[in-house]
Structures are given as C-alpha cells and as structure tokens.
C-alpha cells in the first residue's frame, strides 16, 4: 500500500538532489550553507521517523541556525526571459493541468473504489495522490519533451531556492502550536480576553470573538490555532450558553473571521510569502508585501461583514 512515507521518500531524494547540485555549483554565493540546508531537509524526509524527538529538535535547531546566518541562498542562474527549447503549446498545456486533474480524479478513485482503498492509504489520501501525480506527470514530461536528465532537479532547485526558508514556516508554526498546547497557552489567552472585556451585550461579544479570531490568527498564522482558544473563551460560555446563539452558525462564521486574519499576516507564509517569492515581487521580504496589501482591503470588509452576519443570523 502506498502511504505518506513514500511521498517523504520521494521528497528526500528531491532535496538530496538539490543539496548535491548546490554543493557542486561553484558560482553559488552560499554554497555550503545551501547544500547543508537542503541536505538536512533530505535527512528529515528520509530518516525523520528514526531520529526521535530530541534528534528532530536538534535538526530544527541546525536548520534555523543556517537561516539565521544567511542561508540557504539562491544560485545565480540565467534569467528565465527566453525559453531555451520551446515546446508545442498543446503539450505544455496538457502537462500543466495534468497534476491538478490527476489529484482530483485520483483522490476520488482512492476514496470510493475498492481497488483504490487497497492501493492507497486512507490517511492523507489527497497528499499521497498529489505526490504520485507529480511523479507520473514528471515521467511523462521527460519522455515527451526529452529535456536533459538532470534538468528536473536543476529547474526544481531554481524554484525551491526562490521559496527559500519560507518553505519551513507552516511546519514551524504547527510545531509552535503543539508547544503552546502542551503549555496551556490557549487557556491563559482565553481567560485574559474574557476578563479584559465586559462582554455584556450581544454585539460586543460577537465583535470581540470575531476580532479575537482574526487577531490571534494574525499572530499564529493559522485560524486552526485560534479557533479552540477563542471559542472556548468567548463563543461557548458567552455567545452560545449565555445569549443562546446557534453553535453551527457561530462556529462557521467565527472560523471565517479567522480566515480574514490569515489574509493579513506574513506568518501564514504558504499563502502570503511563498507566492510573493514565487512571483518575484520586489517587496517580498517586507512584513506587508504586495500580496498581503492586495488582500487586506477585501479581508477587512469581509471581517466586518462576518461580525454583522453572525450578529443577525446566529440569534
């Protein structure tokens, strides 16, 4: 059966390729730091399960230290203005949409056919199928367009270096969330919020809940981390038990208020920093880059709308 571990194996091989190519690239400005960074990430993918808690912790410490001293850096590859070997448009179009389509069809097949359930693990199915789709389409691309054998590693490294350290952000925030959970940070924040505001009218309570969801999401980079904290502190005792709000409506709209926060924070790196890096925005390293500035007006209006929707619909 294909499990998520096979996808990690594939990732390990890919990162190892990035690492070796970086180490053999004399023109790379951060050759050793870059090689070490992608190499350690390969170790995490290939052997992370064997390292134990402290081993993985030390691995993270090493990765973070590399970033702190200026790694992993990016190679000086020629700009991508002109296509080296132009391929027919229809081939490119087929290959470009193959992965998303394979992922959707493959996930449905894996979840709803007997064969699929036998072949592919029911945990993280979409991600496994996504990895499989990438591999199959890459093989198809190699056979169809016949690029040099090392070209996928070279081109993949170019894009990965563009993303750089931001690639680690979601994983780091998830781990921070785990430490916060173990240290009971959520309850303390919740107590603080509910004691700091006089939540004696329905409108104030709704507003504090929605703004709290957005604000805590901005800090944590993830509405999933804010939801249990704010809901336990405000929504459950005040909005639902005291004012009799409909739990489904309060929770649904509260979560979406958190999503408005996700649109406004550089902490949500995979949504806001990774695209800025991928699109080569000149202000990508600023706290509020072009992507966040493009989203903020919509996010603020939707946040206000969420407060009003909850106030009028949930009671």
């Amino acid at each position: 059966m294909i499990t998520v571990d096979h996808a990690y194996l594939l990732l390990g091989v890919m990162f190892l390729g990035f690492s070796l190519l970086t180490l053999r690239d004399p023109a790379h400005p951060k050759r050793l730091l870059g090689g070490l960074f992608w190499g350690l990430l390969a170790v995490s993918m290939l052997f992370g399960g064997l390292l134990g808690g402290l081993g993985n912790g030390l691995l993270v410490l090493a990765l973070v230290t590399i970033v702190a001293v200026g790694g992993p850096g990016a190679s000086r590859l020629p700009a991508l203005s002109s296509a080296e070997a132009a391929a027919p448009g229809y081939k490119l179009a087929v290959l470009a949409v193959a992965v998303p389509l394979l992922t959707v069809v493959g996930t449905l097949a894996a979840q709803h056919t007997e064969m699929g359930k036998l072949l592919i693990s029911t945990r993280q199915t979409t991600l496994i199928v996504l990895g499989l789709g990438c591999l199959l389409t890459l093989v198809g691309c190699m056979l169809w367009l016949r690029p040099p054998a090392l070209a996928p590693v070279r081109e993949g490294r170019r894009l990965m270096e563009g993303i750089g350290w931001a690639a680690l952000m979601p994983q780091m925030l998830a781990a921070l969330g785990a430490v916060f959970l173990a240290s009971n940070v959520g309850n303390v924040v919740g107590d603080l919020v509910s004691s700091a505001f006089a939540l004696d009218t329905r409108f104030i309570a709704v507003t504090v809940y929605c703004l709290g969801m957005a604000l805590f999401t901005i800090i944590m980079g993830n509405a999933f981390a804010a939801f249990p904290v704010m809901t336990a502190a405000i929504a459950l005792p005040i909005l639902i038990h005291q004012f009799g709000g409909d739990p489904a409506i309060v929770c649904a709209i509260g979560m979406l208020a958190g999503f408005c926060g996700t649109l406004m924070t550089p902490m949500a790196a995979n949504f806001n920093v990774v695209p800025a890096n991928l699109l080569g925005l000149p202000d990508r390293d600023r706290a509020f880059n072009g992507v966040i500035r493009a989203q903020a007006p919509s996010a603020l209006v939707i946040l206000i709308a969420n407060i009003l929707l909850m106030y009028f619909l949930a009671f």
Partner: protein
Amino acid sequence: MLVLVGILIVVAGFALRANPLPTILVGAVATGVAAALSSGLPVADLPKAALDTLARFGTAFNDNRYFHITWLILPLIGLLERAGLQEKAKTLITRSGAATPGRLLLSYLAVRQGTSALGLTSLGGHPQMVRPLIAPMAEGAAEAQLGPIPDNARFRIRSMTAATDNIGLFFGEDIFIAIGSIVLIVGFMEQAGIHVDALHVSLWAIPTAIVAFLVHGARLMLFDRALRQQASNPGRREGTEP
C-alpha cells in the same frame, strides 16, 4: 501569565523584522521553560525543561512534514517554464484580445471558489496555477489592453493574482463538508458536549462566501481602471505622454 512570553517573543520578533524562523523556535522554547517555571520546577532543572521543549518541538516538526509534499510539483513546473509555458499562456490571452486582467481574475475567482466549494481545492494554488499560468495570463491581458506596462503595474497584477487565488480558496473550501476546518469545528464542539451537524456548519459558510465574492469581485472590476491610470501615469516611465 508567564507562558505568554512566547507570544510576546513572536510579536516582538515581527516588530523588529527579525527572520521568523529563529523567533518561532526561541518563542517555543521560552514558552516551555516558562510553563515549567510556573508549575514550580526548581531553577536548576530549567535546562532540562528547555531540552524537553526542544524535543516536543522536534516531534511536532516531524509529524508535520506533509506540508512539503506540495513542493514535489516544482521540478515539473520548472521544466515547463523552461520550455516556454509562461510565454505560451501570455500569447494565448494577448491574441484573444477581449480579456482584461480584472475580468480574467474575476472568472478565476469564480472557478477557484466554486471548485473549492466542491472539495476540489487542489485545482489551484500558487506553484501549480498562479505562477505558471494565471499570473502570466493576467499580465498578457494587461499588455494586450495597455501596451507595455511599467514594472510596478506588473507586480501589482501578480500580487492581485495571488490574492485572488487565496480569497477564492478560503471562502470556497468551507462550504465543503469534509474540509479540515469543519472537521475541527465538529470535533471541538463534540468535546464541549454540543452536537453540531457538519452539513449545517458548511451551509452557514455560504453567506460569507457570497459577501467575499461580491467584495473581491467588485475590487477586481475596479482593478482595470486603476491599472489604466497607473500605466498612463508618466511619473514612473520616461518618454511616455499621458
């Protein structure tokens, strides 16, 4: 109260514009040590508390490796770009003539939100769709309408493309009942002794979804006019008359 030191560190690091990765690790270890301290651990044992927290962080880091699976598409996208995918996408739009960046992105918003609402969230995304296809198409549409565009307008179009993908995804996916956030809501409420129906939760995401489409869609309709002004503004470019 002491355990809030981690949040304080994260906020301070952000304010000082430090790289977030070291800030997060320091914030996590400080939180773990603070929690040990406020539970009455003697100061001599604090180094051990720090190591325990590092181990807990490492375990969670390892458990969350799946975020990286998205990067498996990069070698393919890189190859397709080398073979001219972005140029092809651009010329396709330029030749069609009728598209403007705003109208193109409005259609993308509708498709992205609609497919996400059906659970098909992997049909879009920044490495898969935005960089190789949608952003070059939006730039091509702008060039077809306005001729050569200045760099600041180009970056604005790219930013708006990424923003449109995010907004379509966020306010579409919550309508699908098997998405992570709904699972989290149902599970959390179950623990609190309240039964909520997943379908009920997902239906109540629809009002916000409509608002999001109207708000961002309206901004996209105004986007074309803003771009025209930016492109005809002689301030940033030499030798062009308004």
